[in-house]
């Protein structure tokens, strides 16, 4: 598989000058992506509550985050909902893309089109229609309804990412596995799935990001106990976004980065 290509340099091949330009471009784009993040990190230490001017250094906002139970609770809810959404979206999106790629279904084109509809559905329409639907079947609002809403707008992203990757995936590999006596299931697990991994990771990242930051569908499908961070943050904008929210973002970014480094480290040790 592609990742096994041995390489001594950063790249697997190519001209030096072109690589230099491409790397420079990538670095510039990353700087662009991180400019606002740096600003919000710096301002999380700003003593001013309205966060307009720099008035002095403080760690007070981090203390306030720690003691703000509803905010932490909302962050916890968001995390749980985003993780569940990611897992379910990846399963639905990958099976959907794979099955429709591999087999011919009656109405396959209709299913494919249908799977893309949530992407184009304005959030407010999805929110209201799901609310009406849940109310009419007597389903109480809560974590389940929020996750259902989030999965519905997230899994098309996984589906399309996986579908793009499947195109041109060498069919001979799977055939070979089947010829060698593997069951279709084993062939899928050992041949197809590893090849799809980059697309699944990319799709999962998109699903997590979409769910983590969604406001409107969440509002119409959530109850008091399942309110998420965006709901609280958008509410707080009314009295002024205070640096406490910056502090919370910084903590979250640090925590995820630490978790990733830690897991990479674990993998290295266990190898």
């Amino acid at each position, binding site marked *: 598989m592609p990742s096994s290509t041995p390489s001594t340099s950063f790249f697997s091949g190519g001209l030096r000058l072109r690589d230099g330009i491409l790397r420079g471009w990538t670095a510039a784009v990353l700087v662009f992506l991180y400019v606002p993040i740096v600003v919000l990190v710096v301002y999380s230490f700003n003593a001013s509550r*309205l966060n*307009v001017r720099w008035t002095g250094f403080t760690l007070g906002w981090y203390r306030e985050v720690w003691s703000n*139970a*509803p905010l932490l*609770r909302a962050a*916890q809810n968001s*995390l*749980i909902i985003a*993780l569940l959404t*990611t*897992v379910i979206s990846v399963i639905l999106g990958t099976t959907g893309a794979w099955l429709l790629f591999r087999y011919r279904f009656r109405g396959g084109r209709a299913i494919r089109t249908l799977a893309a509809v949530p992407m184009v559905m304005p959030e407010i329409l999805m929110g*209201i229609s799901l*609310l*009406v639907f*849940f*109310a009419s079947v007597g389903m*109480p*609002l809560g974590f389940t309804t929020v996750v259902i809403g989030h999965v519905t707008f997230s899994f098309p992203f996984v589906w399309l990412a996986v579908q793009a990757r499947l195109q041109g995936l060498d069919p001979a590999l799977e055939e070979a596995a089947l010829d060698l006596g593997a069951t279709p299931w084993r062939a899928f697990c050992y041949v197809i799935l590893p090849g799809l991994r980059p697309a699944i990771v990319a799709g*999962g990242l998109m699903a997590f990001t979409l769910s983590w930051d969604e406001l409107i569908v969440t*509002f*119409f499908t*959530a*109850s*008091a*106990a399942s*309110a998420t961070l965006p*709901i*609280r943050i*958008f*509410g*707080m*904008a*009314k*009295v*002024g*976004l205070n640096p406490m929210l910056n502090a919370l973002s910084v903590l979250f970014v640090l925590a995820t980065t630490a*978790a*990733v480094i*830690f*897991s*990479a480290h674990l993998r290295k040790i266990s190898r």
Partner: protein
Amino acid sequence: MHLRTCVIVPLLALVTALPARAAEELNLFGWSEYVPQTVLDGFTKATGIKVNFETYSSNEELLSKLVAGAGNYDVIQPSDYAAEVMIRQKLLAPIEPAKLPHLKNLDADMLRRPHDPEGRFTVPYMSGTVGIVVNTEKVKTPVKAYRDVFAPRFKDRLVVLNDSRELVTWALYTQGAPINTINAAALAKARPVIADWVKLVKVFDSDSPKTALLNGDVDVGIVWSGEAAILWNTDKKFAYTIPAEGAHQFIDVLAIPASAKHKDAAHKLIDYILQPEVSKLISDAFPYTNPNREARKLLSAEALANPASYPPPGAKLETFRDIGRAAADIDRLVTDLKSAR
């Protein structure tokens, strides 16, 4: 994959963090950032009733969720005109005054307003106005009326609420027309005025109009008084005036939906909020106009001097009445004019 750890840790955290069920519960559906957490904690401490606080950020959000019948709410916090529709649609339960010994603390002026003429369904929570804020460091001449605001010299230096009904109301005021009679003739007359106005505005923002003023991107604004009060508290250069032609006053109320399951607890919460000491906490956090006469006596001199929270008496103030289907006509008009830019 690290994903596994990511799933397990928070799930464990959730399970351990689930609080023990309190004996009694109450579901409050209110504006976000309008009820301080300290008040809710104090209530739970005093009565043992746990409050589940769910928030919304517009009356229409409240209405749609309430009428869908999906959530069950015991206390809600609509604005006057939204409460008016709810009363007409029989969505509210009557208030039992016998259960509210602190009701007498309220200013009589705030009671029995047109949205609830007999005061049977609603209890005022906070009120405010929509008025003019001027950065007096940048603007030296007086700006006292809508006509002064929408002047060519302020082109691209204005922030106003991103709310079609407000915009139409201001235009009607400058023409001396009644603000609660919205019909084709009134809108046709207001149209050219608004068409000129939208060309002058730099920012339309209902959620946080103070941002553009604080950042120095605009000098004059028409904003909620609560926003203006925060601006004034930050810097005294931001002066608030009620427009001379007249202004919209809103009264946000507490009410109990007809479908509420814990009506006794709901009355307890409303009465708790009516206590002067509690009401003062709300004023401290959110500098709107407090309708609670006794609570006002507890406020600091500085809070009472804030011209946005407590404007000088004598201004012409009117509450919105529900205009029902005409809201769509207003929206179409303003959308049309804005997209013609």
